[in-house]
């Protein structure tokens, strides 16, 4: 970004004001910004995914980049290793990823749409396998460990009681009545304090985001604030 009343800054400032104007009411400038934002951001991710995922992860690894542009400044891929050196390179397995990706695109043909369930099933499998272990390890085990503490101070008692009652709130198998109901009630109090406190805690940083935009308008663009 540059300083002053330049074309670039004016463009950025108009877009900034356009988005903020939505707070007053929906209006043509906001509609313009919104439509532009959707198009530009979709394009941004489209280009980024190509250069940051598809190209290095698939084309470079397989060696397709070198086949298409022989003088490109990239290392040899699995295909070159296989055909020039006659050696098996495990990167050749990435060809399956390419196949799965193309199967995904079969969605575009109504009769072949079902093929796209394979890559989808692959993603769901990866996700559930990954989450199954990592979440248990980092959320359940680690949090459990740090909650087992000596009950020798008010602070520690607050932590243990709060965690226990909070967990009881999430207990689904019994109606929350009697002792269980009482504990679950205390659990909701803790949850409410948690939500209130984390809300209050973030207010400040949200303000600073807006300060950044206002500063852009008044000092970078208009030069009114030194």
């Amino acid at each position, binding site marked *: 970004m540059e300083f002053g009343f330049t074309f670039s800054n004016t463009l950025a400032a108009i877009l900034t004001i356009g*988005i903020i104007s*939505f707070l007053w009411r*929906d209006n043509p400038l*906001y*509609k313009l*910004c*919104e439509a532009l*934002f*959707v*198009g*530009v*951001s*979709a394009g*941004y*991710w489209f280009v980024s995914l190509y250069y940051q995922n598809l190209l290095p992860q698939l084309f470079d690894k397989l060696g397709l980049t070198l086949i298409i542009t022989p003088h490109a400044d990239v290392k040899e891929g699995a295909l070159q290793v296989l055909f020039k050196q006659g050696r098996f390179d495990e990167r050749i397995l990435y060809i399956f990823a390419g196949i799965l990706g193309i199967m*995904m695109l079969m*969605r575009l043909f109504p009769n072949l749409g079902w093929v*796209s*369930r394979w890559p*989808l099933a692959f*993603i*769901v499998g*990866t*996700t*559930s396998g990954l*989450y*199954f*272990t990592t*979440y*248990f*390890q*980092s959320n*359940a*085990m*680690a949090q*459990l*460990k740090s*909650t*087992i*503490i*000596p*009950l*020798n101070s008010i602070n520690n008692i607050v932590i*243990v009681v709060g*965690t*226990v009652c909070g*967990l*009881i709130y*999430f*207990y*689904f*198998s*019994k*109606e929350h009545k009697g002792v269980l109901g009482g504990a679950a009630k205390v659990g909701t109090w803790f*949850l409410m304090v948690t*939500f*209130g406190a*984390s*809300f209050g805690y*973030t207010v400040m940083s949200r303000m600073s985001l807006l300060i950044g935009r206002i500063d852009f308008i008044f000092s970078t663009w208009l030069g009114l604030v030194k």
Partner: protein
Amino acid sequence: MNVSAFCAVPEDPSYGAPAPPTDLVVRDVPNDAGGAIILHWDPSVDDVEGNDKFIGYEILRSTSPDSGFKVIGTATAGSTELTDNQTVDGKKYYYIVRSLMGSSIAEAWPVGPVSSSQQWFNLGRINSFIALLILSTAILWYIHRARRGDTLFIRKIAGLEAVDEAVGRATEMGKAIYYIPGTQDMDNVQTIAGVTILGRVAKLTAQYETPLDVPVSRSLVMITAREIVKEAYLNAGRPDAYNDSMVHYLTDDQFGYAAAIDGMVVREKPATIFYMGAFYAESLILAETGNSVGAIQIAGTAMPAQLPFFIAACDYTLIGEELFAASAYLSKEPKLLGSLKGQDFGKLCILGIIIIGSIIQTFGIFDFTSIFTVQ
């Protein structure tokens, strides 16, 4: 394999030579996939704060104890550890660590042999393994019981009780229902939970003939949501009412997506909005705009940082685990209800461990927490 050596090359103060590091211990990195050896030494007596001449350590490696040592790495003053990630499993190595001070060098005797290897089980994770095994067995056992026909009680979940009412209200008003399945892709279990709940909501909208709009921010979510909505309409006997354009993509960008939904909400004023899945900062932007047009809003997420905002701006919020319980609760399918019971079993175990463990810690009987150390 543990090998250690002690060596004392006499220090010659006239030449300003440093003392070498001592007690070098080299061993295979445990619980790994091989290819690494870890070295640990006690610092040289010259390696003290304020001694600016002391530069650091050099690590040398060879496959023979007598010759062929080459520098494989350096470590700054004050360090006592280095991992050699460039070993070939099974090959025997010898190591030397030497101190550098000014232009002089002092080295200890070589230590070894040591070789790296890969292990068949990560023993550091045995606790997670056992716990997950117990939990999974419990879940599967309850699913089995549920399938056998045992009735399983599940308490009311306020946010889910309201789903019928919310769909009903939209029908009465003749307005649309928006369903936002989060802003993350299918590589997030919350998104999967979100689209599963969409199936139950879509069944209701099919029955009531209420217009449903599902704007999404990821292509794969679009594909999945279409499958699910289509099946729901089919099961409700209304395949004719289904249309691909009910589920449409906007942009992968978190705020671009929020900007577009804000616009849609103020223009079309939906009667009901669902937010179910993984959300980041856009949560409040969406929920406040939805609130401004008077929509009934039901949210559910397992993103702890966004829960406060949904609680503040929505009529009902499914908190964390309740999001994952929702599909079971809404469908009342035995196999799903069974897994909820399994979760509750896990919760009871955790509660018991916290209470008993804290008592043990209070009286200092032994260090109970060490059982739960994660690696």
